[in-house]
């Protein structure tokens, strides 16, 4: 295989990896069967593994497969970034094909290391907020909360547009029955912050116009892990004697890793993503990759003691600020977490990957903004007005790669109290409007119905005597699944709402007896 073939192989690998990522992401539905684990990319992410294990003080065994990727880094350097990372693949595809500008701000390359160290320092303190910057979680969240729902709108829109044309109906039906519940959600989902997820992703892409692979060069904390490994990794580019220092390689290098030196070229191993563009671009075919050390390397960004101190200060300061926010003192009224998560030291286990958000068949699990404070940014929260916790579903716990949402059997999940419903009698139809409605009671999935109906005869404001069934929540039965709130026919907020569950302290009598 010559240089061009290798480069072609890299491109194929990138596209295949991107395709696999999207396929696994799209297949993440309740009953999806797959040969490879649906959370494969999280299992191959050493940053997610290390920080989750540090923060939760628990050995999360399924994440240990990421050691393979880590080992690969010691041999091949940042080959993950150049060949396999789906975000890197996207950046390579969309990046502007203009000649690369000369880099002015080499010091910015330190940002990713500081982010990485800050992240690890915060993880030591039990915080994982910065994992929102992990490229896999970033891409997956965007996919779950923005791309899929938008794609669904496009598909349904096209189908509705084309359906009236008789000859198209059979193929459309065939497509719809094929993709519904497999590649597209079983029912349309709506995400309150889809635009913000999309905008964040767009910003990462847009930075490519400032410098190619801006994200990978300056910001990516996972890239920083591999960059640190690359300093000692074995695979290195080298210029042979034919090199006439024409600098063709310098111009094509997407990460600006190459400089011309007196003897030929000097490469910063921490920045080289082994994309092989330089090998293909060299008019003399003078660049080779091999397991021998070249004698000259481009000055690499070196972490100083100062950076360690800075990162530690940032980490401690951030966590201290998070924990002094109101969210740490008292839960937001509507911070309904997935089943079992609340009792599970959730914030120190959740890696913000968005898998639960994607798998939730009703679309009720939403990436949160500030409901759990800034610390809980992008952690899942159930918004019952948009989707309820289905009584027959335990998918979020099954997919969660870190068991932040415990892997509950369905029978156990059905007893987990995630919230508690309260009726607003000022708005509820039979209470406030003297008209019949029992939807919340009808929908309540519990065997004994947590919503009860009280039969009353009352005098309506217009003087009529009316017989009404008025709903009442029996709070010791309610598990907070939220289907009552979801189905409440009122416009705007429901007249029955799920609040965070109350922790009942033992009654005085109980404690003494």
């Amino acid at each position, binding site marked *: 295989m010559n240089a061009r073939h290798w480069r072609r192989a890299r491109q194929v690998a990138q596209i295949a990896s991107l395709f696999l990522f999207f396929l696994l992401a799209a297949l993440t539905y309740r009953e999806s069967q797959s040969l490879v684990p649906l959370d494969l990319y999280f299992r191959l992410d050493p940053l997610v593994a290390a920080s989750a294990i540090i923060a939760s003080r628990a050995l999360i065994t399924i994440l240990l497969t990421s050691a393979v990727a880590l080992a690969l880094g010691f041999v091949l350097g940042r080959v993950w970034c150049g060949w396999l990372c789906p975000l890197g693949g996207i950046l390579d595809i969309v990046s502007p094909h203009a000649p690369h500008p000369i880099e002015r701000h080499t010091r910015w390359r330190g940002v990713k290391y500081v982010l990485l160290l800050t992240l690890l320092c915060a993880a030591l303190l039990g915080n994982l907020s910065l994992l929102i910057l992990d490229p896999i979680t970033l891409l997956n969240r965007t996919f779950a909360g923005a791309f899929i729902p938008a794609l669904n709108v496009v598909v349904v829109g096209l189908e509705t547009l084309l359906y009236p044309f008789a000859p198209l109906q059979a193929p459309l039906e065939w497509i719809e*029955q094929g993709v*519904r*519940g497999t590649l597209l959600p*079983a029912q349309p989902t709506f995400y309150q912050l889809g635009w913000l997820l999309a905008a964040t992703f767009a910003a990462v892409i847009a930075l490519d116009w400032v410098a190619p692979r801006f994200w990978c060069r300056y910001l990516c904390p996972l890239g920083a892990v591999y960059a640190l490994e690359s300093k000692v990794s074995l695979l290195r580019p080298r210029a042979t004697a034919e090199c006439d220092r024409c600098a063709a390689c310098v111009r094509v290098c997407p990460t600006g890793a190459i400089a011309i030196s007196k003897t030929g070229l000097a490469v910063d191993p921490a920045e080289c993503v082994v994309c092989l563009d330089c090998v293909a671009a060299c008019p003399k075919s003078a660049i080779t990759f091999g397991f021998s050390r070249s004698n000259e390397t481009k000055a690499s960004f070196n972490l100083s003691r100062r950076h360690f101190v800075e990162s530690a200060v940032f980490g401690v300061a951030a966590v201290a600020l998070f924990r002094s926010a109101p969210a740490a003192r008292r839960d937001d009224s509507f911070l309904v977490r997935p089943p079992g998560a609340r009792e599970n030291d959730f914030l120190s286990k959740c890696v913000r990957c968005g898998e639960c958000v994607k798998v939730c068949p009703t679309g009720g699990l939403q990436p949160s903004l500030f409901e759990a404070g800034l610390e809980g940014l992008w952690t899942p929260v159930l918004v019952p007005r948009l989707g309820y916790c289905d009584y*027959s579903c335990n998918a979020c716990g099954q997919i969660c790669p870190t068991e932040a949402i415990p892997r509950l059997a369905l029978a156990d999940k059905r007893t987990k109290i995630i919230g508690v419903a309260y009726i607003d009698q000022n708005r509820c139809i039979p209470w406030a409007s003297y*008209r019949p409605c029992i939807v919340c009671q009808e*929908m309540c999935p519990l065997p004994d119905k947590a919503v009860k109906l009280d039969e009353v005869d009352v005098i309506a404001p217009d003087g009529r005597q009316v017989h009404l069934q008025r709903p009442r929540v029996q709070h010791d039965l309610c598990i907070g699944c939220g*289907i009552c709130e979801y*189905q409440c026919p009122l416009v705007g907020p429901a007249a029955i709402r799920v609040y965070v569950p109350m922790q009942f302290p033992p009654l005085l009598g109980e404690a003494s007896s």
Partner: protein
Amino acid sequence: MLSRRDFLHRFFLYTLSLYAGGSALSACSPRETPPPIIPTSTMPPSPTATNTLSPTGVPYGAPPPTAAATTTLTRVPPSPTPFQPYLSVAHGPSPSAITRAAIDTLGGIGRFVKKGDDVIIKPNICNASLKPELASTTNPEVVATLVTLCLDAGAKRVRVMDQPFSGTAVEAYKTSGIRDAVERAGGQMEIMSDMKYVTTSFPQGRDIKSWKVYEDILKADVLINVPVAKTHDLAKLTLAMKGLMGVIPNANRSAFHNSIDQRIADLNTVVHPTLNVVDAVRVVVRNGPTNWNPANVVVANTVIASHDVVAADAYAAKTLFQRQPQEIGYIRLGGEMGIGKYDLQNMVIKEVSV
């Protein structure tokens, strides 16, 4: 000469600016008020008020006028010949045998299904949590038997569908046991798709003037409505007429409960099943429509069939729940509005046991 890339760039930019300009302009124009679809201010009709209204007098089975007027609509249910009963009832331990017997007594499936027909069977698959033994969803054997009967009668295709209110259709089809039974019998489960709901006018509707309805349900040659007999805390009973709520979009179904009896009756002026088969193999007698307690399920081993949706409901109410048909608001309204008959005295009813 523009390069493709430049063309796309410009096209994108122009489209964006046109869109922005258009939105800005339209934002300045006065807003149209949307047509009132759900009149929530009207009180549910009291019995005295509706008694003064005469039935609309529209002959039962007149083709329902809809938005999709150019397409063919569900065939008018054939009235019985003098030798056929108006309604049939079959009792026996085998769900499959009594389903066949009830249809045979009505004159055989051939009375309803012709060769080459496109058939839709609409059972009750209301949720994804309850197993068939709890009778919140239609008995899978009854549904599968109907699929077999239709296919044997030469139906081109038999589809089975409903839209659950809790859980997704994929799961509910599986949990209810209906998917497996139907597929074994050669039918297809269809997940009801957003693209097929059409805004349909309800010219005879008293409360509903227009609502979205699943187009295929309106257009199928034959529609077989297969509810399971259950109690319901608001409508008192859920049977064939109420079961048709599964053909309107889930998104605004709860709004139906506002004046549920009238709206169910209105829905039945537009959706006309060719045949109604009430599954009373197991009957939920308390705590319906989603009941978890086996003690609330009574084994009745009965199937009721008729081309008249009101008659089927009236008979089920009377015999299974010991309620006068007029007590059930939507049955009474169904009779008043000429959708069908609930007067069981003057009806040819044939009961068989197998």
